[in-house]
């Protein structure tokens, strides 16, 4: 089963990482991803740009375009992974490995209902 691992973190905190700290976290995360890739379990991975670059379309009638992310919470959606896992325990283990490489914040683990790979955008 495909699971989405949604990454939530405090942007003030992540934004305060030095270049070196950021690179160190990314390197550790890459090691976890490599392991999953070799097992053929890793789907698309995305790191989103800061929420300041986000725009929200509220589907009112007529729709309204707003600046900023949808949720006004301290911890924001900053990225996601799609990982193939046999069951929830396996998905939690993957999140634990990722969490050890990237401390703080939270992962939301959500089973995926429909997945269309869509190919690489050009």
């Amino acid at each position, binding site marked *: 089963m495909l699971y989405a691992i949604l990454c939530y973190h405090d942007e*003030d905190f992540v934004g*305060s990482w030095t270049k070196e700290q950021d690179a160190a976290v990314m390197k550790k995360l890459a090691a976890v991803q490599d392991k999953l890739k070799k097992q053929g379990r890793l789907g698309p991975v995305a790191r989103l*740009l800061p929420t*300041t*670059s986000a725009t929200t379309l509220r589907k009112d009638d007529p729709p309204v*375009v707003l600046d900023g992310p949808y949720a006004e919470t301290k911890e924001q959606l900053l990225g996601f992974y799609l990982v193939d896992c046999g069951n929830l325990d396996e998905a939690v283990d993957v999140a634990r490995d990722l969490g050890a490489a990237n401390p703080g914040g939270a992962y939301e683990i959500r089973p995926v209902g429909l997945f269309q790979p869509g190919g690489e955008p050009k």
Partner: protein
Amino acid sequence: MTDTAWIDTALSSARPQAVGALLRYFRNLDTAEEAFQNACLRALKSWPQNGPPRDPAAWLIMVGRNVAIDEARRSRKQAPLPEDEAISDLDDAEEQLAERLDGSHYRDDILRLLFICCHPDLPATQQIALALRVVSGLTVKQIARAFLVTEAAMEQRITRAKARVADADVPFETPGAVERAERLSAVAAMIYLIFNEGYSAGGDTAEIRGPLCEEAIRLARLLLRLFQSEPEIMGLTALLLLQHARAAARFDASGALVLLDDQDRGLWNQKLMAEGLALIDKAMRHRRSGPYQIQAAIAALHARAATPEETDWTQIDLLYGALEIVQPSPVVTLNRAVAVSKVRGPEAALEMIEPLSSRLSNYFHYFGVRGAFLMQLDRNDEARMAFDRAIALANTSAEAAHIRMHLDRLMRDSARRNAKAVK
């Protein structure tokens, strides 16, 4: 990341909000900073054992406040006169309300903290130093290093700035819309100054001063998170991101300046560019133009050109024309002339900058640009004179090295020509 490094990051990321809230309580910058320091000391003891709090800023505000109040109570027992005015919201019953207010005051707290650093009585260098110390929490040593001065000199500069700010009348009421807009634009200008302080460094000091650019970007993102719908703050952030994205390509191995046309575009930081381009796109939707947005739009046109030849100079010329209207300055006209030279040729460009000569008679870039136009027109003797003047006015060795490169080329050209003439 080691645990202590993690705590340091958490403390510095919570700093603007925490010091801003403590400033509102105590209405005194020194007291607020001291309260924050005390709270940090407790955090260093408590967090490794008990784990991090869910909201580090709220924890630091609460603890900082309580420690300060305890100290005030203790000193009240010793002194006959209470210092009630020194502390607001002492009553425990009010505490809950005060915490709830924190959420909504958050924006204005941070804005106020930034705003007191850009008091108009402070010279620009003091504004920047104060903001880096108070808001960013850089140490005096770090700031001194970035400004290339001694620690003692920087300490003195910051102390002086603080004394001036303490005398100044900083309003603590929630600002009205007009006042908020004024504060916002003063703060934006100060963040831009911080960035320029790092950006204008030569190749030899770029590494030491570069962190100033990163700090300015961090503050700009922070400001934009607080004021999500302000197109000029989007423009400012975009401008800083797009400029800084080119950092790795701006100097060659010997530290000489590399002009935009000659930069290796493969060295441009794609992630910063993408963020900058996304922000300028967002800003444009508001159709409320301003100087930061126009400058960001110009930077965006450079960013979007995969090669120098693909640069849309016509559009850049138009944008500089718009900038001349909202923010007239001889430097803007000088920049526009570069675009004009690409669109209509060096003759038209030279004509455009001729009237600027008296106002820019001590400006390095004026003579660099003038020399380049003259060189394109094969007026080599005049070009050499302009370049000589530019070298005399260069602010950094990188600038001088860049001009010397032009002079060398002129020498080679004239040598070649002489050789031909002899034949």
